[in-house]
Protein backbone atom coordinates (compact mmCIF):
# COMPACT_ATOMS: atom_id res chain seq x y z
CA UNK A 1 0.00 0.00 0.00
CA UNK A 2 1.18 3.54 -0.70
CA UNK A 3 1.45 6.12 2.05
CA UNK A 4 0.56 5.69 5.67
CA UNK A 5 -2.53 3.67 6.58
CA UNK A 6 -5.71 5.63 7.29
CA UNK A 7 -5.68 4.66 10.95
CA UNK A 8 -2.90 2.90 12.75
CA UNK A 9 -2.76 1.83 16.36
CA UNK A 10 0.77 1.33 17.64
CA UNK A 11 1.16 -0.75 20.76
CA UNK A 12 -1.82 0.94 22.42
CA UNK A 13 -2.91 -0.02 25.89
CA UNK A 14 -5.77 1.20 27.97
CA UNK A 15 -6.04 0.59 31.69
CA UNK A 16 -8.94 1.45 33.96
CA UNK A 17 -8.81 1.65 37.73
CA UNK A 18 -11.56 -0.34 39.36
CA UNK A 19 -12.32 0.35 42.98
CA UNK A 20 -12.97 -2.84 44.88
CA UNK A 21 -15.35 -1.12 47.28
CA UNK A 22 -15.02 0.72 50.55
CA UNK A 23 -11.56 0.38 52.15
CA UNK A 24 -10.44 -2.06 49.48
CA UNK A 25 -7.39 -1.77 47.29
CA UNK A 26 -7.96 -0.34 43.83
CA UNK A 27 -7.25 -2.75 41.02
CA UNK A 28 -6.32 -2.06 37.44
CA UNK A 29 -8.18 -3.51 34.50
CA UNK A 30 -6.14 -3.84 31.34
CA UNK A 31 -8.91 -3.40 28.76
CA UNK A 32 -6.57 -3.18 25.79
CA UNK A 33 -3.04 -4.55 26.02
CA UNK A 34 -0.36 -3.44 23.52
CA UNK A 35 -2.50 -3.74 20.43
CA UNK A 36 -1.20 -2.81 16.99
CA UNK A 37 -3.62 -2.57 14.11
CA UNK A 38 -3.34 -0.99 10.66
CA UNK A 39 -6.46 -0.04 8.78
CA UNK A 40 -5.78 0.77 5.12
CA UNK A 41 -7.91 3.07 3.01
CA UNK A 42 -11.02 1.46 1.59
CA UNK A 43 -10.81 -1.76 3.52
CA UNK A 44 -13.37 -3.19 5.93
CA UNK A 45 -11.57 -4.31 9.04
CA UNK A 46 -13.67 -6.49 11.32
CA UNK A 47 -12.95 -6.83 15.01
CA UNK A 48 -14.41 -9.95 16.61
CA UNK A 49 -14.19 -11.51 20.04
CA UNK A 50 -16.19 -12.26 23.16
CA UNK A 51 -17.94 -9.52 25.13
CA UNK A 52 -15.52 -7.64 27.34
CA UNK A 53 -12.41 -8.37 25.29
CA UNK A 54 -11.73 -4.68 24.63
CA UNK A 55 -13.18 -4.19 21.14
CA UNK A 56 -15.26 -1.17 22.06
CA UNK A 57 -12.45 0.37 24.13
CA UNK A 58 -10.12 0.10 21.13
CA UNK A 59 -12.76 1.72 18.92
CA UNK A 60 -13.30 4.56 21.41
CA UNK A 61 -9.58 5.23 21.46
CA UNK A 62 -9.59 5.44 17.66
CA UNK A 63 -12.33 8.10 17.86
CA UNK A 64 -10.37 10.04 20.46
CA UNK A 65 -13.05 9.50 23.13
CA UNK A 66 -10.60 7.72 25.44
CA UNK A 67 -6.91 8.55 25.57
CA UNK A 68 -4.65 5.49 25.41
CA UNK A 69 -2.62 4.88 28.58
CA UNK A 70 0.32 3.80 26.43
CA UNK A 71 1.16 3.74 22.75
CA UNK A 72 -0.21 6.01 20.07
CA UNK A 73 -2.90 6.13 17.44
CA UNK A 74 -2.21 7.82 14.12
CA UNK A 75 -4.66 9.08 11.56
CA UNK A 76 -3.02 9.54 8.16
CA UNK A 77 0.37 9.25 9.79
CA UNK A 78 -0.34 12.08 12.26
CA UNK A 79 -0.68 11.23 15.94
CA UNK A 80 -4.25 11.58 17.16
CA UNK A 81 -3.15 13.35 20.34
CA UNK A 82 -1.80 16.24 18.23
CA UNK A 83 -5.02 16.63 16.23
CA UNK A 84 -7.84 19.01 17.04
CA UNK A 85 -11.11 17.49 18.33
CA UNK A 86 -12.89 18.77 15.21
CA UNK A 87 -10.29 17.28 12.85
CA UNK A 88 -10.71 13.84 14.39
CA UNK A 89 -14.49 14.24 14.13
CA UNK A 90 -14.18 15.06 10.43
CA UNK A 91 -12.16 11.88 9.74
CA UNK A 92 -13.74 9.26 12.01
CA UNK A 93 -17.42 8.88 12.90
CA UNK A 94 -19.21 6.18 14.87
CA UNK A 95 -22.39 4.19 14.34
CA UNK A 96 -23.63 2.71 17.59
CA UNK A 97 -25.28 -0.56 18.44
CA UNK A 98 -28.55 0.67 19.92
CA UNK A 99 -30.42 3.16 17.74
CA UNK A 100 -32.81 3.75 20.64
CA UNK A 101 -30.10 5.35 22.76
CA UNK A 102 -27.92 6.88 20.06
CA UNK A 103 -30.48 9.52 19.02
CA UNK A 104 -31.43 12.37 21.34
CA UNK A 105 -35.22 11.95 21.81
CA UNK A 106 -35.64 15.73 22.15
CA UNK A 107 -34.20 16.56 18.74
CA UNK A 108 -35.98 16.29 15.44
CA UNK A 109 -34.50 14.07 12.74
CA UNK A 110 -33.53 17.16 10.77
CA UNK A 111 -31.77 18.63 13.78
CA UNK A 112 -29.90 15.36 14.38
CA UNK A 113 -28.73 15.02 10.78
CA UNK A 114 -27.65 18.68 10.48
CA UNK A 115 -25.96 18.65 13.91
CA UNK A 116 -22.51 17.64 12.53
CA UNK A 117 -22.64 20.58 10.09
CA UNK A 118 -23.55 22.96 12.93
CA UNK A 119 -20.87 21.62 15.26
CA UNK A 120 -18.21 21.85 12.55
CA UNK A 121 -19.34 25.44 11.76
CA UNK A 122 -19.82 24.49 8.15
CA UNK A 123 -19.38 27.72 6.11
CA UNK A 124 -22.57 27.39 4.12
CA UNK A 125 -25.63 27.32 6.44
CA UNK A 126 -28.01 27.87 3.51
CA UNK A 127 -27.24 24.42 2.16
CA UNK A 128 -27.51 22.49 5.44
CA UNK A 129 -31.12 21.49 5.07
CA UNK A 130 -30.70 20.44 1.45
CA UNK A 131 -27.54 18.45 2.19
CA UNK A 132 -29.13 16.76 5.19
CA UNK A 133 -32.15 15.81 3.09
CA UNK A 134 -29.92 14.47 0.33
CA UNK A 135 -28.08 12.36 2.88
CA UNK A 136 -31.42 11.13 4.27
CA UNK A 137 -32.45 10.01 0.79
CA UNK A 138 -29.09 8.36 0.25
CA UNK A 139 -29.59 6.22 3.36
CA UNK A 140 -33.16 5.46 2.39
CA UNK A 141 -35.14 7.81 4.64
CA UNK A 142 -38.08 9.72 3.17
CA UNK A 143 -37.69 13.53 3.35
CA UNK A 144 -41.02 13.90 5.13
CA UNK A 145 -39.40 12.52 8.28
CA UNK A 146 -37.24 15.68 8.52
CA UNK A 147 -39.45 17.25 11.20
CA UNK A 148 -40.29 14.04 13.05
CA UNK A 149 -38.82 12.92 16.34
CA UNK A 150 -36.92 9.66 16.97
CA UNK A 151 -39.83 8.34 19.06
CA UNK A 152 -41.97 8.20 15.92
CA UNK A 153 -39.51 6.03 13.96
CA UNK A 154 -38.86 2.29 13.79
CA UNK A 155 -35.56 0.70 14.82
CA UNK A 156 -34.35 0.34 11.23
CA UNK A 157 -35.27 3.94 10.42
CA UNK A 158 -33.48 5.14 13.54
CA UNK A 159 -30.33 3.27 12.54
CA UNK A 160 -30.56 4.94 9.13
CA UNK A 161 -30.75 8.34 10.89
CA UNK A 162 -27.62 7.42 12.87
CA UNK A 163 -25.87 6.47 9.61
CA UNK A 164 -26.96 9.74 7.97
CA UNK A 165 -25.62 11.71 10.94
CA UNK A 166 -22.29 9.86 10.75
CA UNK A 167 -21.94 10.45 7.01
CA UNK A 168 -23.25 13.98 6.47
CA UNK A 169 -19.79 15.47 7.00
CA UNK A 170 -18.23 12.90 4.63
CA UNK A 171 -15.80 11.25 7.06
CA UNK A 172 -13.21 8.84 5.69
CA UNK A 173 -13.69 6.17 8.29
CA UNK A 174 -16.78 4.89 10.08
CA UNK A 175 -16.50 2.81 13.21
CA UNK A 176 -19.54 0.54 13.41
CA UNK A 177 -19.95 -0.91 16.88
CA UNK A 178 -22.29 -3.85 16.33
CA UNK A 179 -24.48 -1.85 13.96
CA UNK A 180 -27.12 -4.55 13.51
CA UNK A 181 -27.30 -6.50 16.76
CA UNK A 182 -30.12 -4.38 18.23
CA UNK A 183 -32.21 -4.65 15.09
CA UNK A 184 -34.89 -6.99 13.86
CA UNK A 185 -33.50 -9.89 11.81
CA UNK A 186 -35.43 -8.73 8.76
CA UNK A 187 -33.86 -5.26 9.01
CA UNK A 188 -30.29 -6.42 9.71
CA UNK A 189 -29.50 -7.41 6.14
CA UNK A 190 -31.03 -4.17 4.81
CA UNK A 191 -28.71 -2.13 7.00
CA UNK A 192 -25.67 -4.24 6.09
CA UNK A 193 -26.41 -3.91 2.38
CA UNK A 194 -26.94 -0.17 2.82
CA UNK A 195 -23.53 0.05 4.50
CA UNK A 196 -21.93 -1.87 1.60
CA UNK A 197 -23.54 0.44 -0.97
CA UNK A 198 -22.50 3.58 0.92
CA UNK A 199 -18.95 2.31 1.18
CA UNK A 200 -18.70 1.93 -2.57
CA UNK A 201 -20.46 5.22 -3.24
CA UNK A 202 -18.59 7.43 -0.75
CA UNK A 203 -15.26 5.59 -0.66
CA UNK A 204 -15.49 4.80 3.05
CA UNK A 205 -13.31 2.69 5.29
CA UNK A 206 -15.07 0.66 7.98
CA UNK A 207 -14.03 -0.75 11.28
CA UNK A 208 -16.77 -3.27 11.94
CA UNK A 209 -17.17 -4.61 15.46
CA UNK A 210 -19.51 -7.55 15.48
CA UNK A 211 -20.52 -10.77 17.15
CA UNK A 212 -22.28 -11.82 14.00
CA UNK A 213 -19.71 -13.89 12.13
CA UNK A 214 -21.95 -14.24 9.10
CA UNK A 215 -22.11 -10.45 8.82
CA UNK A 216 -18.35 -10.27 9.20
CA UNK A 217 -17.80 -12.82 6.43
CA UNK A 218 -20.22 -10.89 4.23
CA UNK A 219 -18.75 -7.43 4.84
CA UNK A 220 -15.13 -7.56 5.90
CA UNK A 221 -11.94 -7.73 3.89
CA UNK A 222 -9.74 -8.37 6.94
CA UNK A 223 -10.56 -9.71 10.38
CA UNK A 224 -8.80 -9.20 13.68
CA UNK A 225 -9.67 -11.59 16.52
CA UNK A 226 -9.37 -10.14 20.02
CA UNK A 227 -9.06 -12.05 23.26
CA UNK A 228 -8.66 -10.38 26.68
CA UNK A 229 -7.36 -7.11 25.32
CA UNK A 230 -4.97 -8.57 22.72
CA UNK A 231 -5.24 -9.31 19.04
CA UNK A 232 -4.55 -13.03 18.78
CA UNK A 233 -5.01 -13.38 15.05
CA UNK A 234 -5.32 -11.04 12.11
CA UNK A 235 -5.93 -12.34 8.60
CA UNK A 236 -7.80 -11.83 5.36
CA UNK A 237 -11.44 -12.79 5.74
CA UNK A 238 -11.28 -15.71 3.32
CA UNK A 239 -8.20 -17.28 4.89
CA UNK A 240 -9.50 -16.78 8.42
CA UNK A 241 -12.82 -18.42 7.68
CA UNK A 242 -11.18 -21.24 5.66
CA UNK A 243 -8.31 -22.04 7.96
CA UNK A 244 -8.24 -20.25 11.30
CA UNK A 245 -4.75 -20.59 12.82
CA UNK A 246 -5.22 -19.59 16.45
CA UNK A 247 -7.05 -22.14 18.64
CA UNK A 248 -9.31 -19.31 19.88
CA UNK A 249 -10.30 -18.32 16.33
CA UNK A 250 -11.02 -21.99 15.64
CA UNK A 251 -13.24 -22.20 18.72
CA UNK A 252 -14.99 -18.95 17.81
CA UNK A 253 -15.82 -20.18 14.32
CA UNK A 254 -16.97 -23.55 15.65
CA UNK A 255 -19.31 -21.83 18.07
CA UNK A 256 -21.59 -20.64 15.27
CA UNK A 257 -24.88 -22.51 15.39
CA UNK A 258 -25.89 -24.35 12.26
CA UNK A 259 -29.44 -24.56 10.94
CA UNK A 260 -29.32 -28.37 11.23
CA UNK A 261 -30.85 -29.27 14.63
CA UNK A 262 -29.47 -32.84 14.59
CA UNK A 263 -25.96 -31.48 15.00
CA UNK A 264 -26.83 -30.09 18.45
CA UNK A 265 -24.93 -27.33 20.18
CA UNK A 266 -21.40 -27.13 18.79
CA UNK A 267 -18.53 -28.17 21.04
CA UNK A 268 -16.06 -25.34 21.17
CA UNK A 269 -13.58 -27.19 23.45
CA UNK A 270 -13.41 -23.94 25.44
CA UNK A 271 -13.84 -25.76 28.76
CA UNK A 272 -13.62 -23.21 31.55
CA UNK A 273 -15.49 -19.94 31.28
CA UNK A 274 -14.17 -16.53 30.29
CA UNK A 275 -11.48 -15.51 32.81
CA UNK A 276 -11.73 -12.49 35.09
CA UNK A 277 -10.22 -9.59 33.15
CA UNK A 278 -8.94 -8.21 36.47
CA UNK A 279 -6.86 -11.35 36.95
CA UNK A 280 -5.40 -12.27 33.58
CA UNK A 281 -3.71 -15.72 33.44
CA UNK A 282 0.09 -15.60 33.08
CA UNK A 283 1.83 -16.52 29.85
CA UNK A 284 -0.61 -16.87 26.97
CA UNK A 285 -3.85 -15.51 28.45
CA UNK A 286 -5.81 -18.10 26.50
CA UNK A 287 -3.98 -21.18 27.81
CA UNK A 288 -6.50 -22.23 30.53
CA UNK A 289 -9.17 -22.69 27.85
CA UNK A 290 -6.96 -23.88 25.00
CA UNK A 291 -7.39 -27.44 23.78
CA UNK A 292 -3.84 -27.48 22.42
CA UNK A 293 -2.07 -25.87 25.37
CA UNK A 294 1.54 -26.87 25.94
CA UNK A 295 3.54 -26.49 29.19
CA UNK A 296 5.30 -23.49 27.67
CA UNK A 297 2.02 -21.61 27.20
CA UNK A 298 1.60 -20.93 30.91
CA UNK A 299 5.11 -19.49 31.12
CA UNK A 300 5.76 -17.28 28.12
CA UNK A 301 3.53 -14.85 26.34
CA UNK A 302 3.50 -15.66 22.62
CA UNK A 303 4.67 -12.94 20.25
CA UNK A 304 2.95 -12.17 17.03
CA UNK A 305 4.27 -14.19 14.10
CA UNK A 306 3.75 -12.97 10.55
CA UNK A 307 2.77 -15.78 8.21
CA UNK A 308 3.59 -15.84 4.49
CA UNK A 309 -0.01 -15.12 3.41
CA UNK A 310 -0.08 -11.81 5.29
CA UNK A 311 -1.79 -13.15 8.40
CA UNK A 312 -0.44 -12.60 11.88
CA UNK A 313 -0.94 -15.02 14.77
CA UNK A 314 0.10 -14.76 18.40
CA UNK A 315 0.41 -18.43 19.37
CA UNK A 316 3.30 -20.69 20.33
CA UNK A 317 1.98 -23.41 17.99
CA UNK A 318 2.58 -21.24 14.97
CA UNK A 319 5.71 -19.52 16.21
CA UNK A 320 7.22 -23.00 16.52
CA UNK A 321 6.14 -24.49 13.18
CA UNK A 322 6.79 -21.33 11.27
CA UNK A 323 10.29 -20.62 12.56
CA UNK A 324 11.47 -24.23 12.73
CA UNK A 325 9.93 -25.98 9.76
CA UNK A 326 7.86 -24.31 7.11
CA UNK A 327 9.55 -21.00 6.51
CA UNK A 328 12.81 -20.55 4.65
CA UNK A 329 15.52 -18.52 6.46
CA UNK A 330 14.99 -15.35 4.38
CA UNK A 331 11.25 -15.46 5.05
CA UNK A 332 11.97 -15.75 8.70
CA UNK A 333 14.15 -12.68 8.60
CA UNK A 334 11.52 -10.57 6.85
CA UNK A 335 8.91 -11.76 9.30
CA UNK A 336 11.07 -10.64 12.15
CA UNK A 337 11.76 -7.29 10.51
CA UNK A 338 8.04 -6.71 10.15
CA UNK A 339 7.51 -7.76 13.69
CA UNK A 340 9.95 -5.21 15.09
Amino acid sequence: MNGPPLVEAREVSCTFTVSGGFMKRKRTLQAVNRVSLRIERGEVMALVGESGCGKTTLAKMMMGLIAPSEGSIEIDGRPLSSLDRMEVARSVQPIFQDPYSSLNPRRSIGSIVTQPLRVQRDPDPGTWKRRAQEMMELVGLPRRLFNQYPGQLSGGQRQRVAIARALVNRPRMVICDEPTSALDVSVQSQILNLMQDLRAELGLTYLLISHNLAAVEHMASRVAVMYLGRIVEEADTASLFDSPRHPYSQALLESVLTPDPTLGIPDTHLGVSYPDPLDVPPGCSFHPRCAKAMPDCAQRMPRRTELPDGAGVACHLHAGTHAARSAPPEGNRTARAQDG
Partner: protein
Amino acid sequence: MEKAATIVSLPVLEPSPGALLRRRVFGHAGLLIGCTVLSVIILIALFAPWIAPHDPFDQVLDRKLIPPVWSESAKATWIHPLGTDHFGRDYLSRLIWGARISLVIGFSAMLISGVIGTVLGVLAGFFGGRVDMVANFLITTRLSMPVVLVAIAVVSLVGSSLTVVIWVLGLLIWDRFAVVMRSATMQVRNLDFVAAAQALGCSTSRIVFTEILPNVANHLIVVATVEMAHAILLEAALSFLGLGVQPPEPSWGLMISEAKGLMFFDGWLIVIPGTALFALVLAINLLGDGVRDVTAPDGT
Protein backbone atom coordinates in the same frame (compact mmCIF):
# COMPACT_ATOMS: atom_id res chain seq x y z
CA MET B 1 -54.13 11.90 -20.42
CA GLU B 2 -51.89 14.94 -20.73
CA LYS B 3 -53.67 16.61 -17.87
CA ALA B 4 -53.54 13.59 -15.59
CA ALA B 5 -49.78 13.42 -15.87
CA THR B 6 -49.37 16.92 -14.39
CA ILE B 7 -51.10 16.09 -11.13
CA VAL B 8 -48.49 16.22 -8.40
CA SER B 9 -48.96 13.95 -5.44
CA LEU B 10 -48.64 15.92 -2.23
CA PRO B 11 -46.36 14.35 0.36
CA VAL B 12 -48.18 12.60 3.17
CA LEU B 13 -47.41 14.52 6.35
CA GLU B 14 -47.17 13.02 9.79
CA PRO B 15 -48.93 15.10 12.47
CA SER B 16 -46.63 17.95 13.50
CA PRO B 17 -45.09 17.87 16.99
CA GLY B 18 -47.05 21.00 17.93
CA ALA B 19 -50.36 19.37 17.04
CA LEU B 20 -49.47 16.27 19.06
CA LEU B 21 -48.57 18.42 22.07
CA ARG B 22 -51.83 20.38 21.82
CA ARG B 23 -53.79 17.16 21.73
CA ARG B 24 -52.01 15.90 24.85
CA VAL B 25 -52.45 19.15 26.78
CA PHE B 26 -56.16 19.38 26.13
CA GLY B 27 -56.69 15.73 27.00
CA HIS B 28 -55.15 16.11 30.45
CA ALA B 29 -57.76 17.22 33.02
CA GLY B 30 -55.32 17.64 35.93
CA LEU B 31 -53.07 19.90 33.91
CA LEU B 32 -56.00 22.04 32.76
CA ILE B 33 -57.43 22.42 36.28
CA GLY B 34 -54.04 23.21 37.81
CA CYS B 35 -53.25 25.67 35.07
CA THR B 36 -56.60 27.47 35.40
CA VAL B 37 -56.49 27.79 39.18
CA LEU B 38 -52.87 28.93 39.17
CA SER B 39 -53.52 31.45 36.39
CA VAL B 40 -56.47 32.88 38.30
CA ILE B 41 -54.37 33.25 41.48
CA ILE B 42 -51.50 34.83 39.52
CA LEU B 43 -53.87 37.29 37.82
CA ILE B 44 -55.46 38.20 41.17
CA ALA B 45 -52.00 38.76 42.66
CA LEU B 46 -50.89 40.88 39.70
CA PHE B 47 -53.97 43.10 39.72
CA ALA B 48 -54.42 43.22 43.51
CA PRO B 49 -54.50 47.05 43.75
CA TRP B 50 -57.41 47.21 41.30
CA ILE B 51 -59.32 44.13 42.43
CA ALA B 52 -59.16 44.50 46.21
CA PRO B 53 -62.28 46.37 47.39
CA HIS B 54 -60.57 47.91 50.45
CA ASP B 55 -57.13 48.83 51.71
CA PRO B 56 -55.80 45.66 53.38
CA PHE B 57 -54.17 47.74 56.14
CA ASP B 58 -57.16 49.94 56.89
CA GLN B 59 -58.37 49.22 60.42
CA VAL B 60 -61.99 50.10 61.24
CA LEU B 61 -62.42 48.93 64.79
CA ASP B 62 -66.21 49.32 64.99
CA ARG B 63 -66.60 46.92 62.07
CA LYS B 64 -64.41 44.14 63.46
CA LEU B 65 -65.15 40.42 63.14
CA ILE B 66 -67.96 40.71 60.59
CA PRO B 67 -68.70 37.16 59.36
CA PRO B 68 -68.69 36.33 55.62
CA VAL B 69 -71.85 36.80 53.56
CA TRP B 70 -72.88 33.14 53.60
CA SER B 71 -73.22 33.09 57.42
CA GLU B 72 -76.62 33.42 59.12
CA SER B 73 -75.46 36.40 61.12
CA ALA B 74 -77.24 39.71 60.75
CA LYS B 75 -73.89 41.51 60.61
CA ALA B 76 -72.93 39.86 57.30
CA THR B 77 -72.74 42.42 54.52
CA TRP B 78 -71.75 42.56 50.82
CA ILE B 79 -69.41 45.47 51.66
CA HIS B 80 -67.11 42.84 53.20
CA PRO B 81 -67.90 39.61 51.27
CA LEU B 82 -65.43 37.54 53.32
CA GLY B 83 -65.96 39.54 56.49
CA THR B 84 -63.36 41.38 58.57
CA ASP B 85 -60.69 40.33 61.06
CA HIS B 86 -60.25 41.35 64.67
CA PHE B 87 -58.88 44.77 63.64
CA GLY B 88 -61.75 45.39 61.26
CA ARG B 89 -59.61 44.93 58.13
CA ASP B 90 -61.40 43.64 55.03
CA TYR B 91 -60.60 39.91 54.81
CA LEU B 92 -61.03 39.61 51.02
CA SER B 93 -58.56 42.44 50.41
CA ARG B 94 -56.02 40.88 52.76
CA LEU B 95 -56.46 37.51 51.01
CA ILE B 96 -55.90 39.10 47.60
CA TRP B 97 -52.78 40.97 48.72
CA GLY B 98 -51.56 37.85 50.52
CA ALA B 99 -51.54 35.92 47.23
CA ARG B 100 -48.75 38.25 46.12
CA ILE B 101 -46.54 37.37 49.06
CA SER B 102 -47.12 33.63 48.73
CA LEU B 103 -46.36 33.66 45.01
CA VAL B 104 -43.31 35.92 45.29
CA ILE B 105 -41.81 33.79 48.07
CA GLY B 106 -42.64 30.49 46.39
CA PHE B 107 -41.32 31.57 43.02
CA SER B 108 -38.13 33.27 44.23
CA ALA B 109 -37.20 30.50 46.66
CA MET B 110 -37.82 27.92 43.92
CA LEU B 111 -35.62 29.88 41.51
CA ILE B 112 -32.72 30.23 43.95
CA SER B 113 -32.83 26.62 45.08
CA GLY B 114 -33.36 25.45 41.50
CA VAL B 115 -30.21 27.14 40.27
CA ILE B 116 -28.09 25.82 43.15
CA GLY B 117 -29.48 22.29 43.01
CA THR B 118 -29.42 21.95 39.23
CA VAL B 119 -25.83 23.17 38.87
CA LEU B 120 -24.67 20.85 41.63
CA GLY B 121 -26.68 17.85 40.43
CA VAL B 122 -25.78 18.15 36.75
CA LEU B 123 -22.08 18.61 37.52
CA ALA B 124 -22.09 15.62 39.87
CA GLY B 125 -23.97 13.41 37.43
CA PHE B 126 -21.97 14.43 34.38
CA PHE B 127 -18.44 14.34 35.72
CA GLY B 128 -18.80 11.70 38.47
CA GLY B 129 -15.73 10.78 40.49
CA ARG B 130 -14.38 13.50 42.75
CA VAL B 131 -16.98 16.09 41.69
CA ASP B 132 -19.70 13.62 42.59
CA MET B 133 -18.06 12.97 45.97
CA VAL B 134 -18.02 16.69 46.82
CA ALA B 135 -21.62 17.15 45.65
CA ASN B 136 -22.76 14.14 47.63
CA PHE B 137 -21.06 15.50 50.73
CA LEU B 138 -22.85 18.85 50.30
CA ILE B 139 -26.20 17.12 49.76
CA THR B 140 -25.74 14.93 52.83
CA THR B 141 -24.72 17.94 54.91
CA ARG B 142 -27.79 19.82 53.77
CA LEU B 143 -30.09 16.83 54.42
CA SER B 144 -28.80 16.55 57.97
CA MET B 145 -30.06 20.04 58.79
CA PRO B 146 -33.75 20.32 59.73
CA VAL B 147 -35.17 23.09 57.51
CA VAL B 148 -37.57 24.69 59.96
CA LEU B 149 -35.05 24.66 62.81
CA VAL B 150 -32.32 26.26 60.69
CA ALA B 151 -34.76 28.79 59.29
CA ILE B 152 -35.91 29.74 62.81
CA ALA B 153 -32.29 30.08 63.96
CA VAL B 154 -31.28 32.27 61.02
CA VAL B 155 -34.39 34.42 61.14
CA SER B 156 -34.03 35.04 64.86
CA LEU B 157 -30.36 35.98 64.32
CA VAL B 158 -30.69 38.39 61.39
CA GLY B 159 -34.29 39.44 61.88
CA SER B 160 -37.14 38.64 59.56
CA SER B 161 -38.23 40.31 56.37
CA LEU B 162 -39.51 39.16 53.01
CA THR B 163 -35.97 39.08 51.52
CA VAL B 164 -34.54 37.15 54.45
CA VAL B 165 -37.33 34.55 54.24
CA ILE B 166 -36.78 34.15 50.48
CA TRP B 167 -33.02 33.66 50.84
CA VAL B 168 -33.28 31.35 53.83
CA LEU B 169 -35.77 29.11 52.03
CA GLY B 170 -33.90 29.30 48.71
CA LEU B 171 -30.63 28.28 50.34
CA LEU B 172 -32.29 25.44 52.26
CA ILE B 173 -34.53 23.53 49.85
CA TRP B 174 -32.17 22.80 46.92
CA ASP B 175 -31.51 19.21 48.06
CA ARG B 176 -34.28 17.60 46.04
CA PHE B 177 -33.19 19.46 42.90
CA ALA B 178 -29.64 18.22 43.38
CA VAL B 179 -30.59 14.60 44.08
CA VAL B 180 -33.05 14.32 41.19
CA MET B 181 -30.84 16.17 38.69
CA ARG B 182 -27.84 14.07 39.67
CA SER B 183 -29.51 10.73 39.02
CA ALA B 184 -31.29 11.95 35.89
CA THR B 185 -28.02 13.31 34.48
CA MET B 186 -26.19 10.08 35.27
CA GLN B 187 -28.78 8.12 33.31
CA VAL B 188 -28.68 10.40 30.27
CA ARG B 189 -24.92 10.78 30.37
CA ASN B 190 -24.35 7.10 29.62
CA LEU B 191 -26.62 7.03 26.58
CA ASP B 192 -24.99 6.70 23.19
CA PHE B 193 -26.16 10.06 21.88
CA VAL B 194 -23.85 11.77 24.35
CA ALA B 195 -20.94 9.69 23.03
CA ALA B 196 -22.11 10.53 19.49
CA ALA B 197 -22.02 14.24 20.32
CA GLN B 198 -18.52 13.83 21.76
CA ALA B 199 -17.44 12.02 18.59
CA LEU B 200 -18.87 14.94 16.58
CA GLY B 201 -16.49 17.24 18.41
CA CYS B 202 -19.02 19.00 20.69
CA SER B 203 -17.55 20.79 23.70
CA THR B 204 -18.56 19.70 27.19
CA SER B 205 -20.68 22.78 27.83
CA ARG B 206 -22.46 22.30 24.51
CA ILE B 207 -23.20 18.68 25.43
CA VAL B 208 -24.55 19.72 28.85
CA PHE B 209 -26.79 22.44 27.43
CA THR B 210 -28.04 20.82 24.23
CA GLU B 211 -27.97 17.08 24.97
CA ILE B 212 -28.30 16.65 28.75
CA LEU B 213 -30.49 19.54 29.93
CA PRO B 214 -33.34 19.08 27.40
CA ASN B 215 -33.55 15.45 28.47
CA VAL B 216 -33.71 16.17 32.21
CA ALA B 217 -35.93 19.27 31.89
CA ASN B 218 -39.16 17.42 32.59
CA HIS B 219 -37.78 16.13 35.91
CA LEU B 220 -36.66 19.68 36.63
CA ILE B 221 -40.15 21.10 36.07
CA VAL B 222 -41.74 18.54 38.36
CA VAL B 223 -39.24 19.17 41.16
CA ALA B 224 -39.60 22.92 40.64
CA THR B 225 -43.35 22.82 41.17
CA VAL B 226 -43.05 20.54 44.20
CA GLU B 227 -40.44 22.85 45.72
CA MET B 228 -42.48 25.97 44.97
CA ALA B 229 -45.41 24.47 46.87
CA HIS B 230 -42.98 23.41 49.59
CA ALA B 231 -41.60 26.96 49.91
CA ILE B 232 -45.10 28.45 50.10
CA LEU B 233 -46.04 26.04 52.90
CA LEU B 234 -42.76 26.71 54.73
CA GLU B 235 -43.38 30.45 54.50
CA ALA B 236 -46.84 29.94 55.95
CA ALA B 237 -45.34 27.84 58.73
CA LEU B 238 -42.66 30.45 59.50
CA SER B 239 -45.21 33.26 59.43
CA PHE B 240 -47.48 31.21 61.68
CA LEU B 241 -44.60 30.90 64.15
CA GLY B 242 -44.12 34.66 63.90
CA LEU B 243 -40.73 34.32 62.19
CA GLY B 244 -41.72 34.91 58.59
CA VAL B 245 -43.42 37.90 57.11
CA GLN B 246 -44.08 40.48 59.81
CA PRO B 247 -47.48 42.06 60.57
CA PRO B 248 -49.26 44.01 59.29
CA GLU B 249 -48.23 42.46 55.92
CA PRO B 250 -51.09 40.23 54.75
CA SER B 251 -49.46 36.81 54.38
CA TRP B 252 -51.74 33.75 54.36
CA GLY B 253 -49.65 32.02 57.01
CA LEU B 254 -49.76 35.12 59.17
CA MET B 255 -53.54 35.39 58.72
CA ILE B 256 -53.94 31.84 60.02
CA SER B 257 -51.60 32.63 62.89
CA GLU B 258 -53.50 35.80 63.86
CA ALA B 259 -56.80 33.92 63.77
CA LYS B 260 -55.75 30.98 65.89
CA GLY B 261 -56.98 32.59 69.11
CA LEU B 262 -60.45 33.03 67.62
CA MET B 263 -60.55 29.59 65.98
CA PHE B 264 -63.50 28.27 68.05
CA PHE B 265 -65.60 31.42 67.77
CA ASP B 266 -64.92 32.71 64.25
CA GLY B 267 -63.72 29.64 62.35
CA TRP B 268 -63.88 31.27 58.90
CA LEU B 269 -60.83 33.35 59.82
CA ILE B 270 -58.74 30.17 59.57
CA VAL B 271 -60.78 28.31 56.96
CA ILE B 272 -60.55 31.05 54.31
CA PRO B 273 -56.74 31.52 54.13
CA GLY B 274 -56.31 27.78 54.70
CA THR B 275 -58.49 27.01 51.69
CA ALA B 276 -56.59 29.53 49.58
CA LEU B 277 -53.28 27.94 50.56
CA PHE B 278 -54.66 24.49 49.81
CA ALA B 279 -55.95 25.56 46.39
CA LEU B 280 -52.66 27.19 45.41
CA VAL B 281 -50.48 24.24 46.46
CA LEU B 282 -52.83 21.74 44.82
CA ALA B 283 -52.89 23.76 41.59
CA ILE B 284 -49.09 23.93 41.46
CA ASN B 285 -48.77 20.19 42.06
CA LEU B 286 -51.41 19.36 39.42
CA LEU B 287 -49.57 21.58 36.97
CA GLY B 288 -46.25 19.87 37.69
CA ASP B 289 -47.70 16.38 37.26
CA GLY B 290 -49.44 17.41 34.08
CA VAL B 291 -46.32 18.96 32.56
CA ARG B 292 -44.39 15.80 33.32
CA ASP B 293 -47.02 13.61 31.65
CA VAL B 294 -47.33 15.82 28.60
CA THR B 295 -43.62 16.32 27.95
CA ALA B 296 -42.51 12.70 28.45
CA PRO B 297 -41.07 11.56 25.10
CA ASP B 298 -43.49 8.64 24.84
CA GLY B 299 -46.32 11.03 25.73
CA THR B 300 -48.70 8.74 27.59
